[in-house]
């Protein structure tokens, strides 16, 4: 939770600074965000490639455990496509791009803002990026608060699927508490796989 507060803090700080219009417009026109994003993706790659647990994780995969991240992905994508019928302003693919952040709000909002700029324009892309940031923060909050309800009505895997990409860190304590300690491994495994899927699904839906 502390990590999310810091991230939201930086976002709000940027909002306030932008809102006061203290920054010279020549600085704002420089599009160096995209290079920072490239730098981020390179680091994400480095950390995956150099992870000592990578082999361990890959070798411990059992086929039926893969069903858990698959349930998360399929369930989220179907529901995001359906809810796009209620939201007339955005296309189905826009809603799918937002939904496929799977609560990984920092990366998904940045990716959407940058990748949608070409097709939607800077203005609308920033709006969709803001929706992605809020939607994926909301998802983490819903997963944290709803865990006991989800266990009761949808079984012991439900809080894990609800948590999306966060089940290896921020929502892990809640999952351990309400699903039981034997779910910790599945939860971490699920979080890693869903987390890895975000840099694939979000750009994919942005390109459609």
């Amino acid at each position: 939770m502390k990590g999310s507060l810091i991230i939201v803090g930086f976002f709000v700080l940027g909002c306030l600074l932008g809102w006061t219009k203290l920054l010279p417009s020549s600085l704002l026109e420089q599009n160096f965000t995209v290079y920072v994003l490239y730098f981020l993706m390179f680091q994400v790659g480095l950390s995956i490639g150099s992870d000592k647990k990578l082999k361990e994780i890959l070798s411990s995969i059992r086929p039926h455990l893969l069903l858990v991240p698959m349930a998360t992905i399929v369930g989220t994508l179907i529901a995001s496509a359906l809810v796009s019928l209620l939201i007339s302003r955005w296309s189905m693919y826009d809603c799918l791009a937002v939904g496929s952040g799977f609560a990984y709000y920092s990366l998904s909002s940045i990716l959407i803002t940058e990748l949608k700029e070409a097709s939607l324009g800077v203005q609308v892309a920033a709006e969709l990026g803001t929706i992605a940031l809020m939607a994926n923060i909301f998802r983490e909050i819903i997963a944290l608060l709803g865990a006991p309800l989800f266990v009761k009505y949808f079984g012991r895997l439900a809080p894990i699927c609800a948590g999306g990409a966060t089940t290896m860190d921020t929502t892990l304590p809640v999952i351990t508490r309400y699903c039981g300690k034997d779910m910790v491994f599945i939860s971490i495994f699920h979080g890693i796989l869903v987390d890895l899927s975000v840099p694939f699904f979000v750009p994919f839906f942005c390109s459609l």
Partner: protein
Amino acid sequence: MFIIIGIMFGGIGIGYLFRKIAFLQKLNASISYTIYLLLFLLGISVGTNETIMNNLGTLGLEAFLIALAGTLGSVVAAWVVYRFFFKRKESNI
């Protein structure tokens, strides 16, 4: 899209080759700082954008709908997987 995924795969390859270097194990902090910087920059572009600032309520509602839908969709799918693939195997997980 391809540039971003390509850069990530380049990183994975380089990271794997140099995985013995201790520095690479400390990347998480550096990734966090880069994310802070990016969210700060995103904040600036949102803050200077009057349309967004005037429509935060609408955007928030749309965001909430997508979040709620995604969460419900995945817990329903979780129930299906649990009911048909896990309950029986519960004893040997």
